[in-house]
C-alpha cells in the first residue's frame, strides 16, 4: 500500500466516525469534551454553528452519528451523542450576545418558501451577510414540521420558539400565515434568489375498500398531528389503530394515548425489526403500553353505515429470494379483523408542488420531483434552489440543515458573481495535545461505564398531558458520566516514520492490538497479516512509508480507543496525539488558508 496521506482532509475526518456520519459534520467529540468541562455555552455554540437547532435536534434527531460511534464497536452501546447535545442546550447560559448581529443590508433579496429547518438554516447563513431574507409559511409560526408534526411531549414549543427566534432575530422577515400559491407570482416579485424548503407535506393515502365510507374516523397521520399541534383536535376514540411503522406512526400512537386512546395498537406490514422507526422511538411507544403487531397487511376498513368499526388484515410472512430481497407473501392463515374506533394512517409522506407552474423554468423528473443538483441544490432555474424534504423527499431534520448550509453557500456565491459549482475546501486544524511527558490536554483515561439512561417522567403523569415532556434529559452528573464515555476520536494518532526506531513499545502497549509492523503488501493481503483481525474493511489502514528495517507501520483505525498509550510509550515521539478539527465551509466562511499542517 502507498503511505497514507494524512494531509487529505477526509482521512482523519473518517476516523471521527460520528462527525463523518453526521450530514452536517458536527464536531461531536469537541463539544462532548466541552460538556465534560462544564462549558455548556461553548458546546452549544459549536452545535449552533454546525446544526443550527441543538435543542431541537438534541430531542428529535435521527442520530446517524450513534450507529457510527466507535464505542459501539468496542462495547455494546454507542455514546448517547444526541442526548448530550440536549445537555448543552439545557444548561447553557444566555448566548444571545454570541450570536451574529443583524448586519447592514447588501441590497440583495432572497425569498423562502416554507419556514422549516431547511429554509431557516439558509436564512441563518445568509442574513448575517446582509441579505434581506423573507420567509413565507402557511402556518402562523416558524418551524415547519418541527412545530406541526413532532408532538409537544417530545419537543416543547419553548425550545422551538427559542431556536427559531435566534434566526428570525437576525433581521429575517417572517411572513406567517402566508402560503405561497404560485411560483410564477413569486418569481414576478423579482427576488434575487428563491429557496424552496416546503418539505414533504402530503401524507400518503391508503386506498383500500371502505376508506371513503369510513372517512370520518380514518385520519392521515401528519395532518392529524398538525391539527393536534394547533389545538384543533383534542380527542380520539378509545380504541385506535395506527397503520405504519415509521417515526410518524410512533408519534401518532403516543399522541393518541394522550387524547383518550386507551387501547392503541400499531400495526405494520413488515416484521418488527425492519420497521423504519428508530429503535428508541419503538421502545418509548411500547413503554406506553402500545403493542406493535407485525406481518399484517390492511385489506379493508370495516364500517357500519359509514361508522368505522374495525380494520381487516391479511396475514403475511417474509420470504427471501435468491438475491436476499424480502417479499411479503400471504401466510395462508385466515384474515383477521381488529375492532377500533379510529384509524391513523402513517404509511409515508410525499412531496407535492401543485403551486409550481410548468413554465417557471423548473423541470421535474418522472417521479414529479424537481431536478435538483445534489451538490449545489440549484434547480434548472438558476435563481431557484431547493433543500430539505422538498429537494430529495422525506428525510430527517439534520439532512435539511446540511442541505440548507450547502444551498446557502450556492446562493451566496451566485449573488457574489462566483461559480457555484466551485466548492471551497473545509478548513482543517491539526494540533498536538501534548502537555507534558505523559500528559495530554484531553482526558485519555478510558471510562468503562455503560451507557447512562436518560431519566423519563413517570408514565402516569406523562400520559395525562400532551404538553408534558416525557424525557427529562440528563442531569449534570449523568451528563458528565456519559461525556466520559466518548473516546475522543478526533484526537488522532499521528506517526512520524523518520523518528521511529522500531522498538515495538506501541505494539506492546496498544490495548486494542491496532498496530502492526510488517512487510508492505496489497491492502487485502496486509489486512490478513495484522496483529488482530480486521473485520471492517471500510475502516482505513494507516500505513507509513518504509522504515529502517524495510518494514512499514500499519495501524487499523477500526477500534483505536485514542487512549494515547502508543504516544506515551513511544521513546522518540514518533507517535503524537493531535487534535483534528474540521470547519465545514459555510456561506461567508473566509477563504481557507492553504497552510494546513498535519504531522
Amino acid at each position, binding site marked *: 500500500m502507498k503511505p497514507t496521506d494524512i494531509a487529505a482532509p477526509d482521512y482523519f475526518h473518517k476516523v471521527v466516525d460520528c462527525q463523518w456520519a453526521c450530514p452536517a459534520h458536527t464536531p461531536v467529540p469537541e463539544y462532548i469534551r466541552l460538556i465534560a468541562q462544564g462549558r455548556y455555552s461553548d458546546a452549544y455554540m459549536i452545535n449552533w454553528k454546525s446544526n443550527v437547532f441543538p435543542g431541537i435536534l438534541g430531542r428529535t434527531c435521527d442520530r446517524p452519528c450513534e450507529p457510527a460511534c466507535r464505542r459501539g*464497536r*468496542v*462495547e455494546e452501546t454507542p455514546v448517547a451523542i444526541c442526548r448530550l447535545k440536549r445537555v448543552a442546550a439545557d444548561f447553557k447560559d444566555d448566548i444571545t450576545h454570541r450570536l451574529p448581529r443583524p448586519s447592514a443590508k447588501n441590497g440583495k433579496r432572497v425569498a423562502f418558501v416554507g419556514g422549516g429547518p431547511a429554509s431557516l438554516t439558509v436564512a441563518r447563513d445568509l442574513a448575517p451577510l446582509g441579505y434581506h431574507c423573507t420567509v413565507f409559511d402557511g402556518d402562523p409560526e416558524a418551524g415547519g414540521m418541527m412545530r406541526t408534526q413532532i408532538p409537544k411531549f417530545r419537543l416543547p414549543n419553548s425550545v422551538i420558539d427559542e431556536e427559531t427566534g435566534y434566526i428570525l432575530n437576525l433581521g429575517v422577515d417572517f411572513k406567517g400565515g402566508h402560503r405561497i400559491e404560485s411560483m410564477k407570482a413569486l418569481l414576478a416579485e423579482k427576488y434575487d434568489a428563491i429557496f424552496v424548503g416546503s418539505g414533504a407535506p402530503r401524507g400518503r393515502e391508503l386506498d383500500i375498500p371502505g376508506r371513503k365510507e369510513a372517512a370520518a374516523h380514518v385520519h392521515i397521520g401528519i395532518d392529524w398531528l398538525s391539527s393536534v399541534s394547533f389545538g384543533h383536535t383534542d380527542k380520539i376514540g378509545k380504541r385506535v389503530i395506527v397503520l405504519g411503522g415509521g417515526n410518524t406512526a410512533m408519534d401518532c400512537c403516543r399522541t393518541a394515548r394522550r387524547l383518550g386512546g386507551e387501547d392503541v395498537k400499531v400495526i405494520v406490514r413488515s416484521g418488527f425489526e425492519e420497521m423504519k422507526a428508530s429503535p428508541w422511538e419503538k421502545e418509548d411507544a411500547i413503554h406506553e403500553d402500545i403493542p406493535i403487531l407485525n406481518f399484517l397487511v390492511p385489506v379493508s376498513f370495516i364500517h357500519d353505515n359509514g361508522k368505522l368499526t374495525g380494520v381487516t388484515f391479511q396475514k403475511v410472512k417474509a420470504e427471501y429470494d435468491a438475491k436476499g430481497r424480502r417479499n411479503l407473501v400471504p401466510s395462508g392463515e385466515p384474515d383477521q379483523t381488529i375492532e377500533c374506533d379510529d384509524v391513523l394512517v402513517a404509511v409515508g409522506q410525499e412531496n407535492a408542488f401543485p403551486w409550481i407552474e410548468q413554465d417557471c423554468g423548473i423541470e421535474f423528473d418522472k417521479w414529479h420531483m424537481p431536478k435538483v443538483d445534489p451538490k449545489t441544490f440549484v434547480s434548472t432555474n438558476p435563481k431557484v434552489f431547493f433543500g430539505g424534504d422538498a429537494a430529495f423527499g422525506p428525510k430527517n431534520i439534520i439532512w435539511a440543515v446540511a442541505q440548507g448550509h450547502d444551498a446557502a453557500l450556492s446562493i451566496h456565491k451566485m449573488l457574489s458573481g462566483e461559480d457555484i459549482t466551485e466548492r471551497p475546501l473545509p478548513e482543517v486544524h491539526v494540533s498536538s495535545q501534548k502537555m507534558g511527558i*505523559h500528559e495530554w490536554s484531553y482526558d*485519555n*483515561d*478510558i471510562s*468503562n461505564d455503560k451507557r447512562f439512561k436518560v431519566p423519563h417522567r413517570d408514565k402516569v403523569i406523562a400520559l395525562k398531558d400532551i404538553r408534558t415532556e416525557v424525557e427529562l434529559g440528563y442531569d449534570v452528573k449523568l451528563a458528565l458520566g456519559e461525556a466520559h464515555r466518548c473516546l475522543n476520536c478526533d484526537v488522532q494518532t499521528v506517526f512520524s516514520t523518520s523518528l521511529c*526506531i*522500531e*522498538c*515495538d*513499545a506501541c*505494539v*506492546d*502497549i496498544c*490495548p*486494542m*492490538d*491496532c498496530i502492526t509492523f510488517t512487510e508492505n503488501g496489497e491492502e487485502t493481503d496486509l489486512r490478513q497479516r495484522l496483529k*488482530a*483481525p480486521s*473485520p471492517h474493511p471500510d475502516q482505513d489502514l494507516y500505513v507509513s512509508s518504509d522504515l*529502517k*528495517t524495510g518494514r512499514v507501520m500499519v495501524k487499523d483505525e477500526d*477500534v483505536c*480507543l485514542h*487512549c494515547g*498509550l502508543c504516544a*506515551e*510509550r*513511544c*521513546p*522518540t515521539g514518533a507517535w503524537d496525539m493531535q487534535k483534528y478539527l474540521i470547519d465545514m465551509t459555510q456561506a461567508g466562511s473566509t477563504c481557507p488558508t492553504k497552510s494546513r499542517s498535519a504531522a
Partner: protein
Amino acid sequence: MTYIAKPKFHHPGLKKNELGYTHRDYEGKISTLCAGCGHDSITASIIEACYELSIEPHRVAKISGIGCSSKTPDYFLGNSHGFNSVHGRMPSVLTGANLANRDLIYLGVSGDGDSASIGFGQFAHSIRRGVNMTYIVENNGVYGLTKGQFSATADRGSKSKKGVTNTDNAIDLVAIALQLGATFVARSFSGDKAQLVPLIAAAIGHKGASFIDVISPCIAFNNHAGSTKSFDYVREHNDAVNRLDVLVGRDPIAVDYAPGTVQVVEQHDGSKIALRKIDADYDPHDRLGAQTFLARHAAKGQIVTGLLYVDPDAEDLHSHLNTVETPLNTLEADTLCPGSAALDKFNASLR
C-alpha cells in the same frame, strides 16, 4: 511512566486459547519502565508464549532479583505466583521453590547486573545443578537504574552514552551457560518477537535448565552510536542460526520447507520444536561445536542468535536427587516421618 491503567477494552476479534483466555488475560500491571524499554517487549513475548501454550497462570512461579529487568514480572501474568527477591539471589530462591514444589513452571527473570555481577555465582550454580526452569536474562549492558554505568556484559571497546570507552572484558552469559552444562541455551533480541516468542515457549517446555540471553536495548542509556547493545547495532550484527516453531498437541508437522532444512525436536511435555536451519552447518545438539561457533563469531563482532544448544534427553535436579514425584510441600507428616520401624529398617541397611 504512564499514569493511567491500561484500558480493559480489548479487540472484539481477539482469538482465545484452549483455556478460553485471550493474550490480554496474561497481562500484569502497566509497565513503569522508560518508554521504549526493550524489557517491555520481552514482557510482551512472555505473555504471548504463555498464551500460546495455554498455560494456566496459577501454575507459574515468576521469580526475580533486583534491577529494571527484575521489575518486569509485575507486568505479566498478574494471576501467577511471584517473588521479587534480593539482588542476584533469584537463582537460589528459585532453586528452593522448585525443590519444595516441583509441579510449578518456574520463570526466573534477571538482568545482566543481577546475573553477571552480584549474582554471577548464583547463576552459575543453578545452571550447573540443572534446575528445571526458564532463566531469562534481559541483557542491556548497562545499569539503567543507576544511570547507565557499564555492566559486566558490556563489550570491551563499546562506548557509554557520555563517550567513555569500556576497557573491561565482557562476560558472555551464553558461553558460560554452555560451559556449565545448561541443556537449553538460546540468545535472542527484544526487537525480534518472531524469534523470541517460540524460544520462550520451547524453553518452558524443556525439562532442565533453560537459559535465554535476550539483548534488550536500554533506550535511556545504551541506544547510541558506539553501543553494541543498541537497536541499530544488534539489527546490523544479528546472525541467526535458525528459526523455530513450537508445535503444541498432536498435530502432525506440516513441513513446507526444503528437505534437510527442518529438524524436529520432541520435548518432555509432548510438544515439538520444528527448527528451520538458516545456517546449514549449525548443529544445535553439539555443545562443543556451539561453543566454538560462538567464540568464532564473537571475535568477528557478530551476535549469534537462535536456539544454540538443546539436549532433548536432559534431566533436572529432581532426577539427580531422586526425589518423589509428589511435591515435597504437599507431603504429610506421616509420610515424612514414617515411624521407628521404618527408621530401624533404614539404619539396618547402613550396617
